[in-house]
Each structure stands twice: as structure tokens, then as C-alpha cells.
């Protein structure tokens, strides 16, 4: 969901049937923590967490000189409010990662779309994909990490069930 009021990506992986709702929610929280940390790690270095995007577009020299001591790496961190607002919300069926703060969602929407519909920034600022859209995925490294978490968590529950 990428709109001006909320920006989030939901992950709904297939999970083994033997996990109950409480275990599934625990697992989704683990995934949320992992994905958000990994996203922040990539963004800090100017990389997009979206598959196939690679590096985020460099900042213009003019902007970098004015705001970032000349550093053109787009780490999405000026005041830091946007990255601070990123959270995850988990339930037994999925986990959503994004921002639900109105002031920050519009900022995220602007960056992702290249300020589509903005009076004077539309078409003038390079889009920077900080979160996948409905049709996009997280980078393979994050996807692999999610698969490992599910595999290990499920194996642990299975072992415990067998012992019990």
C-alpha cells in the first residue's frame, strides 16, 4: 500500500499447519524485526531494499553541499523522522512494515513516486524506492533471511511438540 496517508508492505508467507496462532504471531514479529533492521541497514548505505533497484539515486551536488556536507549518498536521513517512523505490525497471518504517521507517509510516498502530483517537485526529484510496492519484493538477501527464520522457527516448534 503506497498512498499519501500510509505506506507499507505486507509479507504473508506460507507457514506450516502445525503452528498455532500464538506461534505464528511470534514468528511474524521475528520476521518484522529482521526485515526492518535489514531495511534500515541497506538505506543507511544508500541501497534500496527493493529487488532489482540497486543503489538509490545519488543526491544532487547542490543539495548535498547545502544539507549533507557534500556527501551525495542518499541515506534518507536529514531530520531522521521518516526512518524513525518505520515500524512493523504483526498478526498470525502476516506482518506489515512501513509508516502510518501521516506526515511521514506523505514524505515516503513522495520519495517512492518521485513526488508524483507535487506542485513543483513532480518530475524534478529522482524516485527513491525505500519500500516495495504491492507488485514488488524485498531484495533476495532479505527474502532468503525470511525463509531461514521460518525454517528454523518451525523446526524448533516441531522439535518441542515431539518432545512434549
Amino acid at each position, binding site marked *: 500500500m503506497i498512498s499519501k496517508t500510509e505506506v507499507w508492505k505486507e509479507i504473508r508467507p506460507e507457514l506450516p499447519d502445525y503452528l498455532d496462532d500464538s506461534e505464528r504471531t511470534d514468528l511474524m514479529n*521475528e520476521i518484522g*524485526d*529482521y526485515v*526492518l*533492521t*535489514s531495511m*534500515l*541497514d541497506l538505506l*543507511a*548505505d544508500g541501497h534500496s531494499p527493493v529487488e532489482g533497484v540497486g543503489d538509490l539515486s545519488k543526491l544532487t551536488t547542490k543539495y548535498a553541499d547545502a544539507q549533507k*556536507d557534500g556527501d551525495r549518498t542518499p*541515506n534518507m*536521513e*536529514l*531530520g*531522521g523522522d521518516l*526512518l*524513525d517512523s*518505520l*515500524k512493523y505490525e504483526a498478526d498470525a497471518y502476516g506482518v506489515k512494515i512501513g509508516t502510518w504517521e501521516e506526515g511521514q507517509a506523505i514524505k515516503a510516498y513522495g520519495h517512492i513516486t518521485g513526488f508524483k502530483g507535487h506542485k513543483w517537485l513532480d518530475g524534478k526529484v529522482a524516485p527513491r524506492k525505500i519500500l516495495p510496492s504491492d507488485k514488488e519484493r524485498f531484495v533476495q538477501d532479505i527474502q532468503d*533471511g525470511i525463509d*531461514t*527464520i521460518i525454517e528454523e522457527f518451525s523446526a524448533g516448534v516441531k522439535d518441542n511438540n515431539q518432545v512434549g
Partner: protein
Amino acid sequence: MLETSREDFKKEIKNSFGGELLDLLEKGINPVKQSNNRQTEYSESYKKQIEGKLMFFKKGGKLIAIEELSKKELKSFRASKSASEQNAKNSKFLAYSKQQFKDKKVRPVNLKLTGALHESLKIDITRDNPYVEFSDPKAIYHNDVGVGPKKTKRRLLPTGSGEEFTLRLFQKIKNALQKAIKKNI
């Protein structure tokens, strides 16, 4: 655990886990698993110091920010100094601030000024368990006591009951252990 495995585990955990922990801290990412994955931002007064916009002076042996003075106190402070004295003091402070915070930015909140805190990271293995410590005296204030009037904590390590490292760090420990065991089978 075999002695050789223990040594390999120690080496591996220092490189992979230690490197990852410092990398997350450098980026302002909270290494402790909790709802807030980012370190709490610096206080407004500290941000102003970093930007060289806040002046301090001594009052009763204590450093007081000029912004913290009441209007009356400010008036009396200004009256007690000539314009040239005030300018000299301002320039001296700004030069000091510029030097002290020359590589410091308001963001990310990386808990790094001189680098001593990050450099004090120690990783060892005691009784087959990894042991992680920041020996710099500032660490306990950032991590457990809290700093400033609001006692803001910025976490370095999980020290509270039930707290854990964020999953990415936990995986580094697990991978280091698996690697060391595999190598010595």
C-alpha cells in the same frame, strides 16, 4: 566444546558478530530487539552543540547553556560583559565546538564522538558462552542508566531481563558457532 573449536568460535564471533554490532551502531540502528528499531534522537541542546549553535558559560562552577537562562539572568549576563568580551567568548566557544564535533552529525544517532565507546567493545568466551562488553564508562549510562534530564537510553547491548539481540545479530552468533564446529569435525 573442543579447545580448537572454542578458539575458532571466538575468532569468528569477533569478526562477524562484532563487525555487525558496530555497523548497526554506526548507522543508528538499535541492536536490542524491541519495537523501536532506531536509536532515540539526540536532545535538542546536544543537536545545537553539534551544529555549533549553542553557547555555554560557567555559573557556579557548572556549565550552563545560555538558552537556559531566564530573561532576567540573560539581561544581567549581557550587561556584565562588553560586546567585545561577548564576541570573544562566542568565537572561542564556536571554535571549540567546531573542533570537538568536527566529524559529528546530528544523524545518525551513532553514539560516536571520540570513538572510545565503540573501540571499547570486548568479545570473549567464558564457559562456552559468548561474552560481550563495552568497557567504556559511558556505556552503562547510555545503555542502562539513561542520560540527560529525561534519562534517555540508547541501547548498546541487551542487559534487561528477557531482552535479546535483534535477530540479525543473533544469527551471526549462531552462524559463528556452526562454522567453528563444522571446521573441527
